[in-house]
C-alpha cells in the first residue's frame, strides 16, 4: 500500500469527524458534573436530540431550526431530570438511568414515522480549500459548522471554568454547595442551568449523528456513544482538554482498526475492536495519574443531593 500524505490527512479528518459527538456530549456533561450533578442520562438526551433534529429537518426542511430544535429538545428532556433531582431531590443515578431508558423509548416512538427517509445534505465550509494544502487541507477544511464548534468547545469550556466568574461559581457549587449557598449563591439555580446546558450539548451531539455524520434515523442509532462520553468525563478527570485527547484516541483507534483489517494485519479482530476502549482508558489514566490534581479537579459533591433547609 502506498502511504501518501493526503491519505493520512483523510484518515485524520475521519477520526476527527467521529470524535465530534463524543466531544460535544462530554463537554456538556463536564459542566453538569462540575456543578455537582451526575447525569447518567447522556445517551437518552443524545438520542432525543438525534430524532428531534432529524424529524425537524424532515418536517420543516430548515437545517437551522433542526439544529436548534435538537438542542432545545435536549434542554427540555434534561429539565425533567433537573426538576426531579433538584426540586424533588431524587437520587441522581437512578433518575439519570431512567432518563436514558425514557429517551430511547420515546425516540423510538416518535421515530416510527421517520424510518427509511433519506436525510438532507448538510452544508460544509471551505470545501474549495481542501486541496490547496497537502495533509492539512482535508483536516482543516470542508467540514460542517458543528465540527468546528466541537473542536473549539474544549478550549472554551476550559477558559470558562478557569477564568470566568460564572465558571468559578459552577465549580464552587460542585465542590461545596453548603459554602456556596452561605455565600449567597443560589445552588439550585446554578445546578439547573448546568443540567440544561449539558442537555443542549447532548442534543447537539445527537443531531450531529442523525443529520451530518450518517443522515438518517434508525432506532438506537447513538449506539452507546453517550456512555462513552460519560466515561470520557471521568477518565479525563474533569479536564476538557483531556476529553479532546480521549475522544480523538477513541475515534482514532476505531477507525485505524478498520484500516488494519483492510490492509490485512494478522491481529485477532476481536482484539482490534476492543482496542479503542482499552487504550483510551489506559492513556487517560496514565496522563492524569497525579492524585493531587485529581483531588483538585474532582467535584467533591458529585452525585450528592443538596437540600437547603429554609
Amino acid at each position: 500500500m502506498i502511504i501518501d500524505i493526503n491519505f493520512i490527512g483523510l484518515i485524520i479528518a475521519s477520526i476527527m469527524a467521529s470524535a465530534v459527538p463524543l466531544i460535544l456530549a462530554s463537554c456538556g456533561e463536564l459542566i453538569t458534573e462540575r456543578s455537582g450533578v451526575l447525569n447518567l442520562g447522556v445517551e437518552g438526551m443524545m438520542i432525543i436530540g438525534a430524532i428531534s433534529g432529524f424529524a425537524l429537518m424532515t418536517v420543516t426542511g430548515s437545517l437551522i431550526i433542526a439544529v436548534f430544535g435538537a438542542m432545545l429538545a435536549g434542554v427540555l428532556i434534561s429539565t425533567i431530570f433537573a426538576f426531579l433531582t433538584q426540586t424533588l431531590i431524587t437520587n441522581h443515578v437512578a433518575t439519570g438511568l431512567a432518563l436514558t431508558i425514557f429517551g430511547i423509548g420515546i425516540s423510538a416512538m416518535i421515530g416510527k414515522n421517520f424510518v427509511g427517509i433519506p436525510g438532507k445534505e448538510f452544508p460544509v465550509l471551505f470545501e474549495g480549500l481542501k486541496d490547496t494544502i497537502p495533509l492539512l487541507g482535508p483536516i482543516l477544511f470542508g467540514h460542517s459548522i458543528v465540527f468546528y464548534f466541537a473542536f473549539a468547545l474544549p478550549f472554551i469550556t476550559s477558559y470558562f471554568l478557569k477564568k470566568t466568574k460564572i465558571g468559578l461559581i459552577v465549580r464552587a457549587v460542585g465542590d461545596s454547595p453548603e459554602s456556596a449557598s452561605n455565600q449567597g449563591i443560589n445552588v439550585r439555580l446554578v445546578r439547573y442551568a448546568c443540567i440544561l446546558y449539558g442537555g443542549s450539548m447532548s442534543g447537539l451531539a445527537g443531531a450531529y449523528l442523525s443529520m451530518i455524520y450518517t443522515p438518517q434515523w434508525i432506532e438506537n442509532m447513538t449506539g452507546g456513544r453517550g456512555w462513552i462520553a460519560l466515561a470520557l468525563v471521568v477518565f479525563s478527570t474533569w479536564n476538557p482538554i483531556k476529553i479532546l485527547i480521549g475522544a480523538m484516541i477513541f475515534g482514532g483507534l476505531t477507525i485505524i482498526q478498520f484500516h488494519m483489517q483492510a490492509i490485512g494485519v494478522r491481529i485477532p479482530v476481536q482484539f482490534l475492536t476492543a482496542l479503542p476502549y482499552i487504550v483510551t482508558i489506559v492513556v487517560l489514566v496514565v496522563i492524569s495519574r497525579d492524585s493531587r490534581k485529581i483531588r483538585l479537579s474532582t467535584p467533591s459533591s458529585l452525585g450528592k443531593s443538596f437540600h437547603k433547609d429554609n
Partner: protein
Amino acid sequence: MHKFFIRSFVSSLVLLFTFTVAAIAKDVKAAFVYIGPTGDHGWTYQHDVGRKAVEAAGFKTTYVEGVPESADAERVLRQLANSGHDVIFTTSFGYMNPTNKVAKEFPNVKFEHATGYKREHPNVSTYAARFYEGRTILGTIAGTMTKSNVIGYVASFPIPEVIRGINSFTLAAQKVNPNIKTKIVWAFTWYDPGKEAEAAKALIDQGADVIAQHTDSTAIVQIAEKAGVYAFGQASDMDKFAPKAVLTSVENNWGPYYVDRVKAVANGTWSQKDTWHGIGDGMVVISDLDSQMPADLRSKVKKLQADLASGKVHSFTGPIYDQKGNLMVAEGKTADDGMLAGMMTYVKGVEGDIPK
C-alpha cells in the same frame, strides 16, 4: 338486588355469546417475535413488511419487538401461545432453542423459526432465504464495475450465513474479473450506522471503489454516495438513500411465505417443513438495476438472475478451492445444502482470516 341479578344475567349472556361466537368463527391469529426494533430499516423491518402482508390478507397479527435471545424469549413465546395465537414466527437464529422448548408445551400452536435447523417437534417448521444467490449477482456487478480492482466488503459476524455471502460474492466477481481483490472488514455489529460508516470510509480510503455490505443500516451506501463509489443495498431497496451509488439491492421478501403459511394454518393443511427459498421462489428479490450499468451488463445480470431462479446456474459450482488450495467442490458439482449451511472457510481469493 333485583336489578343486580338482571344485570349479571344479561352480562353473562353477552359474555357467553361472545365466547361462543369466538369459538365458532375462530380467526387465525399470527404472532411475530423480532430481535430488533421494527424501525431498523433492515432485518426486522423486512419481517414486519411480511407481517403487514399477512394482515393485508385478512388475518390478525401481533408482534413483539426487541426480544433478547435468552430466557426472555421463552417467556414471550409462552405468553403468545397462551393468548390464543395459532402460529408464531420467531425471526432470529438465537430463538432456536426457546422455540423448540415452548413448542413442546403447546402442541396445538404452530411454530415457524427463521434461519434455524432444529425441528424437534412436529409443530415446528424452519425457513430461511438463499441470500447468497443475490450476492452472486452483486459479485458479478462489482467485478465488472470496479476500476481499481479493489472491492470493499463490510461484514458483521463470522457465522456461516455471512461467510457464505462473502464466498459467493467473491466467486462471482472473480469469474468476470480474475484480478479483483476483496478486502473484508468486520464491524462486529448488525447495525450501528456510525461504525458501519467508519468501516466503509476506511475501505474507500484504501482504494475500494465498490462497497458491499452484510450489515443492515443505510450508512454505508450514503458514505459511498459522498465518496463517489458504488455500493449495494442490503435487505431493502436503498436506492433513495444513495441514488448515484446504489447499483441494485438484494431485498428480503418474507411476505409471500408468511401469507402462505398462515393460510395453511387456517385451512388446516399446515405441516412441518424446512424451507430454504431463493430468487426462484421470490424470497430473495433483486431491485431495479441502475442505468449507470452498461446495457450488456444489465442484460447479463438479468440472464443470470433467470438462470439462478431456474436452477440452471448454482452460486457454488465447482471447481471451488479454499484459501489453502484444497478442493471444496469438484468440477461440475455444486455445493450441497449441508455444506452451505455449515460453511466456515473462505474460498480462494478472499484475503485475510476468518475471526475466531
